[in-house]
Structure formats: C-alpha cells, structure tokens
C-alpha cells in the first residue's frame, strides 16, 4: 500500500513538473509530501511558481493562475492514470483568451485517449471540440438539447 502511494505520488509529481510549465510557458510546479516518513498519513502540498515570479503562498496567485494550476494538475493525473471520461463544468471561466487556447490544445492532445464533455461559454474551448451540444429553455423552466457535429 505504502509503495503504491509512493509510486503514484512520484508519477503524478513527474507529470505535473511537465504540465505546469507547458501551461504557464515556463515556471515551476511540483507536489511535496508534508511528512515523508509517514506515507500512510502524509498530506500533499502543491508548490507553484509562475515564470519569473518568486515562490509565495498559493493564496497570492491570481484567479486565472489558480484555475490554470488546477488544470495543469488535472492533466498531470490524466497522463498517469487516464479516466475513461472527464466531465468539466466551466473550468475555463477564469482564463484569459490565450490560456483558453492552450487549454483547448491540451484537450485535443488528450482527447484521443479519453472522452471529454466540457461545459463552456468560451469560444476557444468550443473551437477545440468535435461536437457541440446546445442546451436551451425554449419553454421557460424546461431544458432541451440539440446536437451539432462540428467536423
């Protein structure tokens, strides 16, 4: 059990060290164990440092930087142990347009291994998708769906 935890931790950590700079175009991100000698109970800390910036509390990051770090971590885990499908509700809401494009590129990169269902209001994310499902309430209070295949 402990060995499995250690292996999973190392794997996600190595993966996150790659995905973080990919999304931030530089910088550094890693996971750290709060108690290396007690793998049964240790907590997991997240250390992120956007390019050029100094290490500081996660709380001081911007709204978009926090969202992008969460996205980088999600793709890091995906590389280690892909879930068959992902359902993501507006995880791009806080991103600026450039970061939305990067997110869209990653979706396409991993869209072959896993299935993605993403809720979004952002143009860039829609453009990265193969199918669009529209949800509307033509009758007030009652939802209906319509699907449009893009390519």
């Amino acid at each position: 059990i402990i060995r499995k935890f250690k292996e999973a931790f190392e794997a996600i950590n190595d993966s996150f060290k790659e995905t973080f700079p990919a999304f931030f175009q530089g910088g550094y991100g890693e996971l750290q164990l709060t108690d290396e000698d007690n793998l049964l109970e240790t907590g997991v800390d997240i250390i992120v440092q956007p390019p050029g910036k100094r290490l500081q509390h996660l709380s001081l990051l911007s709204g978009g930087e926090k969202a992008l770090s969460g996205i980088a971590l999600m793709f890091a885990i995906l590389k280690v142990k892909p879930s068959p499908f992902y359902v993501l509700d507006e995880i791009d809401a806080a991103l600026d347009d450039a970061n939305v494009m990067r997110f869209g590129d990653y979706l396409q990169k991993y869209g072959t291994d896993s299935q993605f269902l993403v809720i979004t209001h952002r143009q860039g994310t829609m453009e990265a998708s193969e199918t669009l499902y529209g949800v509307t309430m033509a009758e007030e209070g009652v939802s209906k769906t319509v699907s449009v295949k893009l390519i």
Partner: protein
Amino acid sequence: MYLKSLELQGFKSFADKTKIELGGGIAAVVGPNGSGKSNIVEAIQWVLGEQSAKSLRGHKMQDVIFNGTKKRKPLGMAEISIVLDNSDHALDLDFEEIKVTRRLYRSGEGEYLINGKNVRLKDIHRLFADSGIGNDGYAVIGQGRISEILESRSEDRRSIVEETA
C-alpha cells in the same frame, strides 16, 4: 470505455425525456445561463452514485426531481440512465455494453439498475470504484471547483494520490 449516451427524465430542469448521444472525443456543452448545462453534469454525478444532496446544490435528495414551472406541475420521479461502451472491459462486468439507471421518488425511495437488473446503491459504487470515474476522483469537476484543489488542506489532497494509486 466511453459514455455512449445519457438519458434524463424528470431530473431538475429536464422535465421531458431527453437523450444525449455521445461519440468519443471532445464534446462541448453550451447554452445560456440557467439553461441546464450544470444539471447535465449533476445528472452524471448522480447516476454514478452521488450520495450528498449538497454536492448537487440541493438540501435534500428530492430536490433533484423536477419541481414544476408556471405552466407545469412537479413530477413524482427523477430518472437518469447512462450507457457505457465496455468492449475494453475497463468495468469488471462481463458485458460489452453497460446501462446504469437510477431513480428517485418523492417519498425518498430509490431504485438502481445495472442492465435492467435491480441492484443496491453500493453495487453501483463498486462497479465504478476501480475505474477512475467515481465521484470522489477528479474526473467530474463541478462548476467553480477547479481552484478548490489548490485551496484544500494538505490532508484532503492526499486522496488525489490515493485515487491514482
């Protein structure tokens, strides 16, 4: 393994029977504020075995049953069915296709079916437990939750590693 289709009936704003056919790959769900997009996400969480009404923005589980509009009466039952392609046998069941159904009545009584056979809620949990899909993983990320992973406490974050191990 992938989601082939999702059927909603009487679940939140989906009063009428609605079927969403999914291909593999990347699908985007779009629409105006309040149209029902997050309700679709919660429908998937729910049919995968979600037990907390609060995680579905409700106070009690019956809050997921369509509660009527100016023109329509409330319904007595909510039902969600999900059909999964299991040709790679990622799910530990000897079927090429697996249909999971969950129902809830106003009384609070629930029903759970796997390929038409009545099962208990924990059988649904067990089915998805090792596949990485379960709701305690990170595969379903609800609205406003992407930053939470950074803001959570170190002890809670260990579950990310445990889930992957």
